[in-house]
């Protein structure tokens, strides 16, 4: 079966997951993002590529930040952006997901940006929209968060240039993290030789080894010699007790402090998808320190989302 994200010419028409995307598609997105990065520095911070198109932000799960960056990206491409507070509207009245999509399609939507608590929801939508309509996954359940994965790759490439000699450590709550999953797929696609997943047994699934990931339950072992350290947020809202003794205990063992960071390469970069929990997974002095590239990640995220939206909008199903 063909990858539902690609048309018969192998061009990207939806972005649902990084898994299964060819390397040249990923690289094309990163290259295009580079072009868009400068748009935000111009006097006129807008280009007309999506002029006359309507982008619907469908956030079935709350996320002010991701929704805002998609909104900014779509507006810089001159699209009309409609934000639907879906969690509180039609679904609360019992409307099914596909009925919601059919109704919004009747309002001439050209693109849906979807966040949903259920893994696979964006795939279902992509299968049911008209050929000219495009879908971007903005996070589905524990499955994928491809634009975060891509902006992480953009950030790594910006600071490290080449992927093929890097050691990347992803630290924390991996089992609940769609960001970790998207990062791992992207890093593997781009040829990173050493990908480490670091955290306690309860939060790092052992089957990651099958994806070529080195699993480390010891923080020192996980961070030692790393070029890139990606810290994940401890997802309190997804955790049902029992998996961790306490947040304080977690910080003591896996929190990124200056002395733990000292084990990484001297020029290592520290990343975090945000929002950060200071003193839970990352020490304030590290989050604000010279190795941290957490705020540049946010800036790059807008350019990457502009790239994704303009590429898929330019390709026919």
């Amino acid at each position, binding site marked *: 079966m063909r990858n539902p994200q690609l048309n018969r010419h192998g061009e990207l028409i939806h972005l649902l997951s990084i898994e299964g995307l060819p390397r040249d598609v990923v690289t094309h997105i990163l290259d295009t993002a580079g*072009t868009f990065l400068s748009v935000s520095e111009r*006097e*006129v911070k807008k280009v*007309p*590529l999506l002029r006359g198109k309507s982008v619907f932000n469908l956030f079935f799960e709350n996320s002010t930040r991701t929704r805002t960056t998609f909104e900014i990206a779509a507006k810089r491409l001159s699209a009309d952006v409609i934000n639907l507070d879906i969690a509180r509207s039609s679904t609360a009245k019992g409307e099914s997901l596909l009925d919601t999509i059919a109704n919004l399609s009747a309002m001439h939507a050209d693109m849906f940006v979807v966040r949903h608590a259920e893994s696979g929801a964006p795939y279902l939508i992509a299968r049911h929209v008209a050929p000219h309509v495009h879908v971007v996954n903005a996070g589905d359940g524990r499955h994928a968060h491809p634009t975060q994965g891509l902006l992480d790759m953009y950030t790594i490439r910006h600071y490290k240039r080449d992927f093929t000699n890097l050691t990347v450590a992803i630290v924390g709550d991996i089992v609940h993290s769609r960001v970790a999953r998207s990062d791992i797929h992207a890093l593997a696609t781009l040829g990173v030789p050493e990908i480490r997943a670091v955290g306690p047994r309860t939060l790092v699934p052992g089957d990651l080894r099958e994806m070529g990931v080195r699993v480390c339950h010891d923080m020192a072992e996980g961070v030692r010699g790393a070029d890139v350290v990606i810290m994940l947020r401890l997802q309190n809202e997804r955790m049902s007790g029992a998996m961790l003794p306490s947040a304080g205990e977690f910080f003591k063992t896996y929190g990124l402090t200056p002395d733990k960071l000292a084990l990484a390469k001297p020029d290592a970069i520290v990343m975090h998808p945000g929002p950060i929990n200071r003193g839970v997974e990352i020490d304030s002095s590290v989050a604000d320190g010279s190795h941290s590239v957490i705020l540049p990640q946010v800036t790059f995220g807008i350019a990457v989302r502009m790239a994704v939206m303009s*590429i898929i909008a*330019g390709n026919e199903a």
Partner: protein
Amino acid sequence: MSTLALDAEALYAELRAGLRGLLAPDTALVGIWSGGAWLAERLQRDLQRPGAHGVITSTLHRDDFGERGLAGGAGATQLPFEVDGRDILLVDDVLYTGRTVRAVLNELFDYGRPARVTLAVLVDRGGRELPIEPAFAAARVALPPGQRLSLARGDDGRFTFSTRSAA
């Protein structure tokens, strides 16, 4: 018309000579990516212009985005000077429909309001679809619509023209 022998180096020499009348001391040279950018780079050097030349791309303002999508490989616009109030000379290798120049003008105005914009090209091949005319063209030729004409730059920096039939 089968093949057309255009001596790109001879035309470049003519363009270089023709530009002298168009360039004021504070005129900024801006090459349209990619062939025009090579021309601007060499003109900047050969005419001993002060400062750096600019490079501009039509990618983000093209009117065929719906059919073509984002063309890969286009470099980003780089204008290392203040555009507001500036006298700008756009340089391109081949002028055809005028659509690239239209897109580039929009791109340019995203950076500011230039005092004046003029256009100089190596070859004007006719076939205009918009009211755009160059202030200087080193050659005017007629080519059938199916033929593509583009400038190439060798490892030694010398220019040649290549023609091929569009697929």
